[in-house]
Structure formats: structure tokens, C-alpha cells
């Protein structure tokens, strides 16, 4: 499925490298974009595209933290709680977010499946802590109120998609 649907992008990726194997990481990102995470079927497809064994692809997906090996929330929130951010209150910020979302590290995804909260190591935004990355985009110089506003906005986006406004009859 990936091979046909994303043929053009995959071709462009292959053109960058002398060896097809180098394309495995970029194509895993495409698979994750399509499926939301990397189920075994996706691993098998990527393996076939790159002429690799599925076990090799699975090991890549397991080694790198940005590949999702299980389903996650629609919005994947990564809060840096590493030393430099923690010195500027990132641990407290993280715990406030946990409380606000009603998640913890055992159950890191909200009941409605919209948000997953995880903490991560240094994201290179130490001077703008606390910060978080949501689906690969940075949000910096946060406090809990700013984060709550972002979360409300994202939740509204999901609700709008689920319940599109009905056209008005006049």
C-alpha cells in the first residue's frame, strides 16, 4: 500500500542515497504518517520497499525513540525534563500537565485517545524552557496556563473534525 500511495516520495528518497538501506528511516516516517504508529504490517511493507528483513526494520523502529511501536494519542506531547529544563521548572510543568490531562506514566494516553504525554531528553531548547514538542513541532517558553490553552485548542480541532458544523438552511 505504502509503495503505491507514496511512490513519488519514496522514489525521491531513494534518489538521495547510493544504497536503498539508507532510505529505511525516512520511509519509516512515511509509514508512521500513514498508520499513526508502526504495526507489524507497516514494518513488513517498509522491509519489502528497502529490500531488508522485517527483523532489521523492527530493530531500527525499536532503537530510535521517534518511532511509535504502539498506538499513541492523536497529539503526541513530549516534554523535556532534562537537567537544563528541569532547572527552569520543567519537572513541575510536567507533573502539572499529567494532572491536567489525567495521565501518568502507566497510562500515558487520555481516555479519549487524543493526547499522549511523555517526557524526553534534551530537545535543544534549554533557553526556552519549559517547552514541549507536539507531533514534531516545538512550543517554547511555556507555563501550565499556556499549555492548557494549547491543549484546549487541539481538543477543539479534534471535536470540530468529529462534529463538522452543519450547513445552515436559509
Amino acid at each position, binding site marked *: 500500500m505504502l509503495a503505491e500511495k507514496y511512490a513519488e516520495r519514496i522514489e525521491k528518497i531513494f534518489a*538521495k*542515497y*547510493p*544504497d536503498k*538501506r*539508507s*532510505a*529505511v*528511516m*525516512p520511509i*519509516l*516516517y512515511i509509514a508512521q504518517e500513514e498508520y499513526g504508529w508502526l504495526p507489524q504490517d507497516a514494518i513488513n511493507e517498509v522491509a519489502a520497499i*528497502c529490500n*531488508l528483513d522485517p527483523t532489521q526494520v523492527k*530493530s*531500527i523502529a525499536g*532503537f*530510535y*525513540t*521517534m*518511532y511509535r511501536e504502539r498506538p499513541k494519542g492523536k497529539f503526541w506531547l*513530549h516534554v523535556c*525534563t*532534562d*537537567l*537544563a529544563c*528541569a*532547572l*527552569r521548572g520543567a*519537572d513541575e510543568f*510536567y*507533573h502539572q500537565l*499529567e494532572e491536567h490531562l489525567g495521565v*501518568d*506514566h502507566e497510562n500515558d494516553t487520555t481516555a479519549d485517545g487524543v493526547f499522549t504525554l*511523555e*517526557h*524526553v*531528553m*534534551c*530537545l*535543544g*531548547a*534549554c*533557553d*526556552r*524552557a519549559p517547552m514541549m*514538542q507536539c507531533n*514534531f*513541532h*516545538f512550543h517554547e517558553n511555556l507555563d501550565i496556563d499556556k499549555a492548557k490553552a494549547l491543549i484546549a485548542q487541539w481538543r477543539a480541532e479534534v471535536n470540530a473534525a468529529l462534529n463538522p458544523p452543519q450547513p445552515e438552511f436559509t
Partner: protein
Amino acid sequence: MTNLNIIYREKDIPDIREYNVYIANGGYDALKKAISMKPADVIDEVKKSNLRGRGGAGFPTGVKWSFIPQHEPRKYVVVNADESETGTFKDRQIIENNPHQLIEGAMIAAWAIQATAVYIYIRGEYWDMAHALERRIEEARKGGFVGENVGGSGWNCDMFVHLGAGAYICGEESALLESLEGKLGQPRVRPPFPAQKGGGLYGEPTVVNNVETLANVPWIILNGADEYKKIGTEQSSGTKVFCVSGHIVKPGNYELPFGVTMRELLYDHAGGIPGGKQIKAILPSGGSGPIIPATDEFLDTKLSYEDMAKIGTILGSASIIVMDETVDITWVASKITKFFKHESCGKCTPCREGTYWLDKVIDRIMAGEGKPSDVDLIANIAKNMQGVTLCALGDFAANPIIHTIKHFPDDFKQHVSGSNGNGAKAAAPARRAAPVLAGG
């Protein structure tokens, strides 16, 4: 002198990221000049400039380039934009605000070694920056400075961005090359070194340079090695970007000549310590370098490779994390240990196992359940991790333990004193257990 912006030219020209603005301000003139020179002369000029690798090791850049065998048909330049050290955010600012200078510097390096392609390995978390950088490369390609017949020289060299996916270890050059080849990011056995046949990308001779290093190169080619050497100290030429974070009034990147003192950096430039508090300790090179107590001697030490070595630490990538008097250094050791435990690639046993043991015992100490002998135990584990791994991560993980205990023994003692198992519980700061990390 302090206003010389070689790297962060956006401070003088805010829109320097735009291709036309970059061109209007002498952009790609250095590349044009370089391709009018013999590749060997470009290497000599960079050698003469005493430019040293800004990724942390400080290795002379021109010397690195000169290791590349001339007659191999395929050669690569790989730009290390995997910036992942705790407290480091300098390369990101170059990629965001002055991307064409990085592209130009990388193309000059490529000309110097007659490379066939350039790969920029950028950490996956810099997703937006990586995609923006691809568009900047496309502008340079359209301008004739990347790709076929570069600058009308007949030389072909394309440039590609490769996104990582969240692994600190990929900043280590041989692990980076493995990752770029589509494998697990684990360090290689050396020799052969990347510059040698069999040791580089796809087995071809390869130069791996840091973003900041390459961003210096256009200035050196345009203004000459002699001018460059006038900036900085005798053994550390040019400017350096200092990333200042932690307990500081104005955290951020400061580009200053080598030789500025820590005190000048922190108090004159970065605004001093919030609340008028005293500094307790500084990590001058992120999580991986030795921690140093903020003595007057240290604060008055010049920031250069040679001066930092004299006082028993390293300049590294100059990721300066400042901790005020309220910080419990045992907690710092715990934080850094968790980082390395998460980031150890698992290839070498001392690092893979050692980081877990350290973390487990420090957790026990932090929970007030440690014994006085636990401090000796972690010091011993750390010592046995030094110098016995394929890459420096094992040593990096040992550093925070060894140097925190050496310089701040009382911080550890307060958690374990008089303890027969749980006697020190009252002294332990109440902190919640750290949650499981993403992918951990």
C-alpha cells in the same frame, strides 16, 4: 571585539536567512573564491587558520580534511547536525537563522576534499528546521552553488538532508554514519577511521564536521587565515558560541571570541544569576563534561580549549549549565545519569550495564534508602566504565558521578549520613519518581 558576529550574522543582518539577502551581503563569494583555488590550498588555508572542531573534540579542521586520500573516486562530507548534548542549542540557531552560511561552508569543505556528495544529518526532533533547511538547499541548488557544475567549475556535488529519529549516540561520528546507512546508531570499531577507505560513509573516505565548525569556513576563506587567527587565544582561534542555560537571567547563545572569561560571559553578557543568588556549580560542557564548583579561580578562567583543560575540565561544545546555591548536586548526578542510561546504545557492556547500575543506586540514595558505602559503590562503578568502551559515551556517563562526588561530597553525604538503610530519609528532598521515558 565582542560585537564580531561571524556565525550569528542575523544579529547584524536580520534577514540573512533569505537567499537574496545572503547573496546581497557577499553570500557564496567564499565558495566562488574557494573553487578558484586548488583544493589543497583551501585545506592549507583552513589548517593555517587553526579552526578547531566545534562539536566538542576541538580537533583541527584542516588537519581532518587533509587525511582524505585524494585519488578515491567517491568521497563524502557529512555535516553533524545531531545536536543532542544536554544544554546545547547553538547549531539550531545557525540552521534557523543563517542556513546558507552552513550550506556554503559545507560546499567549501566538499570542494577541499573533492567530495561527491554532502549529507546533513540532523536530529529528528529538529523536524521543522530540517524541512526549512531542505528548502534553503534548493535555493542554493537553483543558484548553482549545489548540485551539478558548482559555480561553473565542472565539479558536481549534491547536498541532502537526512533526518535522525531520536538518538543522542548518533552525534558520535561513527554511529552517525551507521545511522545514515540505515542501521542502528552504534559506534564502529576504529581503525579504520572515517577519513580512511573502508571507514567512512558506505566505506568511502568521509569528513564529518559539526555545523558551527563549517559555518566558520566562509569567513576564513574570504578574510584569510591570518585575520582569523587574530581573534581568540593562541590555541583557540576565532569566536565560539556559548550556550548558556539553567539558573541565569538571560539564557541563550552568545557568540564571543575565545578567551572571554566565564565571569564576563555569565555576568556581563548573560545577566547574572536570578534573585542575586550565588552560583554553586557549572557544567561547562553539558552533561558529558566534568562539573566544576564556581570558585573565583574558575570564574576568572578564560574560555578556551587550553585554559579549560588546565583547570581539569573541558570546553567541549561550550554548553554551559549554571546551577545556583539551592541545587542539590546529587540530584544533578541523578538527572545526568538518567540521560546517559537512556542514551547508551547498548553495544558495550560497561556502558549498557553501568548506566543502569548507577541509576539504580542513585535512585536509592535519592530516596533516602542509601548506605554511606553506596557513594563509594557508584564511584567504583563509574571508574570501571572509563576508557573501556568503543566511544566516549561510557566516559561521559562516568564523568557526572566521579566529578560530583569529588567536588560535592557533602551533597551525597546528606542523603546517606548515619543511614543504616533508611536513616537519611528525612534529608532527601521530596521529589517524585521520574516517569518512564519515551521509547525507554
